[in-house]
């Protein structure tokens, strides 16, 4: 928990999600980077119909902080980043982190579109090809440039790890499963992925986290 100096109380964090990385993993990475304990709840699918009715928008992930529920994965990750000092130092840095997270979210949504929403197998294959031939390379090429505007050899924004880096690792983990060489044209991004993977706390989490397909 986090020590609230004024009230000398440790906050209790519980993260509700399914047993996969999905949209909870950025928050899990941030907890790990800070060494901040939390209850990593993984809901079974049989429990879901009843479980969801207790949640603010009937969706997961949900972060419960001393009983208060916050939903929406981006909002959750931003909150965990704030309480652990990984949100960006100035207002402008925070805006830059936010814009990068939103850019990554857009790409993840496009990927999710063919993985989860397209039922027709031919269309699915077409969309997957379009994603890997156009959407993702365009994104990675822009992101390599954005990383270079911050020097290129550190994290995405400012001096330290921010939630944008956590989201980026999650995207990388996903796309590298399909195409292990996808980062070859983007050496700075490839190095960033390694930098995040070996970040103290994250390194240990990656070694011990449940291995799931997505």
């Amino acid at each position, binding site marked *: 928990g986090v020590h609230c100096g004024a009230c000398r109380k440790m906050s209790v964090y519980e993260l509700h999600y399914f047993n996969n990385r999905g949209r909870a993993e950025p928050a899990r990475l941030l907890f790990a980077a800070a060494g901040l304990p939390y209850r990593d709840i993984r809901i079974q699918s049989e429990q879901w119909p009843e479980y969801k009715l207790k949640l*603010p*928008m*009937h969706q997961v992930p949900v972060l419960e*902080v001393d009983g*208060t529920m*916050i*939903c*929406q994965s*981006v*909002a*959750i990750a*931003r*909150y965990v980043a*704030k*309480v652990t000092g990984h949100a960006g130092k100035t*207002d*402008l840095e*925070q*805006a*830059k982190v*936010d*814009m990068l*997270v*939103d*850019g990554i979210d857009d790409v993840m949504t496009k990927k999710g579109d063919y993985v989860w929403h397209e039922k027709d197998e031919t269309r699915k294959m077409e969309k997957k090809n379009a994603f890997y031939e156009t959407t993702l390379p*365009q*994104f990675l090429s*822009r992101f390599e440039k*954005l990383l270079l505007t911050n020097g290129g050899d550190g994290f995405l924004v400012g001096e330290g790890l921010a939630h944008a880096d956590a989201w980026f690792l999650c995207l990388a983990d996903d796309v590298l499963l399909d195409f292990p060489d996808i980062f070859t044209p983007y050496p700075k991004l490839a190095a960033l992925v390694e930098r995040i993977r070996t970040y103290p706390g994250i390194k240990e989490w990656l070694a011990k986290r449940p291995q799931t397909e997505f």
Partner: protein
Amino acid sequence: MPSYKLTYFNVRGRAELIRLLFATGGIPYEDVRIGRDKWPELKPKTPMGQIPILEVDGQVYCQSMAIARFVAREAGLLGESSSDQARADMLLDGGAEVGELLKEVVLEKDASKRAEKKKEFSEKSLPHFLTLYEGFANDSGHFVGESLTWADISFFNMMDFLTAEFPSALEGYDKLNKIIENVKSNPGIAKWLKERPVTDH
């Protein structure tokens, strides 16, 4: 005082929340509206090939929600504590999800598919969303705490778009209607609503 320059098309679209927040905060900014013909030239100069963009003393920021959050912070409309801010964030994100579903209805070209999607939206997604959000609103007509935050303004903006398709959507939702009233009666917003260019979306 930093200089702010917002660039978008001459529509409300993804820039209007940002404009509303500048107006609420009484923060001066340049409201640049470009013609579609100027876009191909500008696109490669933007961080992610998209607008709106906000230039702050020469630094360029993209992603409408990131920009809106920044302006909300400068205008003191973010929410006070980290948990208030997280509450506002989650309500905005949930609203954006419904906004995407509404877009799918509005952008459907096939007339019979559109009618189908519109029916499904108005019978399932919309009431589900409004019922949840009526529950999130408090009696004083605010989503977060007891004063205006960007969560209220964002809801107002979304309803602006939604009621164009579904005029009576908010009937019976007393607390949500209070939120709309609170937003509309904010002096900065009232002035902007009178003065802003009238566009079809």
